[in-house]
């Protein structure tokens, strides 16, 4: 598991380095993720240590997000007048996004399914 963790933070470090060296707008961990992804594609399989290590970490995600989420309760008085816009944007925006994506993908997917049937 530690060897797997080493690959993860190794990729992150490399990602952070590339981000700084090239001044990319993409966050270091995201570049690290792409590096690991390319590495796995080249290798052709996932080492057992990495499989276990990454699974453990991903399982922890809800816990890692709790503390930043608690910050919602401490935004302070400066944010008071922003709440209506904030809540409206997030709730309505998310509902619209779900409906929009749902309809779009159903349309696109239905079309390719039909294309395939037509060709067959």
């Amino acid at each position, binding site marked *: 598991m530690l060897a797997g963790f080493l690959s*993860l933070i190794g990729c992150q470090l490399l990602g952070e380095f590339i981000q700084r060296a090239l001044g990319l707008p993409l966050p270091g961990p995201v570049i690290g993720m792409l590096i690991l992804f390319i590495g796995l594609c080249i290798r052709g399989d996932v080492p057992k240590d990495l499989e276990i290590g990454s699974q453990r970490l991903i399982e922890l995600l809800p816990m890692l997000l709790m503390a930043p989420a608690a*910050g919602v309760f401490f935004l302070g008085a400066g944010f008071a007048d922003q709440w209506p816009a904030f809540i409206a944007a*997030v709730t309505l925006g998310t509902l619209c996004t779900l409906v929009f994506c749902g309809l779009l993908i159903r349309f696109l997917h239905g079309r390719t399914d039909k294309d395939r049937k037509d060709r067959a």
Partner: protein
Amino acid sequence: MSELLHGPLFAITLTLLAYQGAMFVYTRSGRLALFHPTISGATLIAAALMLLQQDYHAYYQNINWLTFLLGPATVALAVPLYRQLHLLRNMAGPLLITVTVGAIFASASALIIAWLFGANHSTLLSLTTKSITTPIAITVTQDIGGVTTIAVASVILTGVVGITTVTWLFEKLDIQDDRLWGFCLGLSAHAIGTSRAFERSPVAGAFSSLALCLTGTFTAIFVPFAARWFM
């Protein structure tokens, strides 16, 4: 005595304890979306901090050791993404188009609604990353000059809205294919949506993490450029 309350030991204990409590509540409630561990855990932490009259920012500093793990956890997403590569091959076209258009739609719809409601500049900037996973959202928001706490709050609330409405919404829209269901949830509601999708089925979870990775990467690339162009 009271110095114990200000140290990392207390902060980390509180976080782990809140997580255990949140998991208990969540499983007991029959996995009700509203009691998702991220939501109930955050509420427990906030309640404990208020009761003990502790400063949130000091607490957040003290659990640096834990939040550090968000970096390697983001890198770790490459593993499920690689595992789902074969799923992408069959549906690459529809999925890639939906991610590109959907990610822009997610940012733009939030911005337009917030702007109509009279949100200020920094709130607008902090809303652009609402549909992407927190570690990426934090980095991007800092990059474009938004407020991290508001960005995180918008990400979390987006996740909450997503998982509490998706079942009902997609029943109405008649989207029951686990692949499409998971993909849309991962696109709109990132990691919170993905953990919900894994509860529906492994296939829904796989498509949800695929969408999470693609949306995060795509948004992380286009938001900084778009922000520079608009400002």
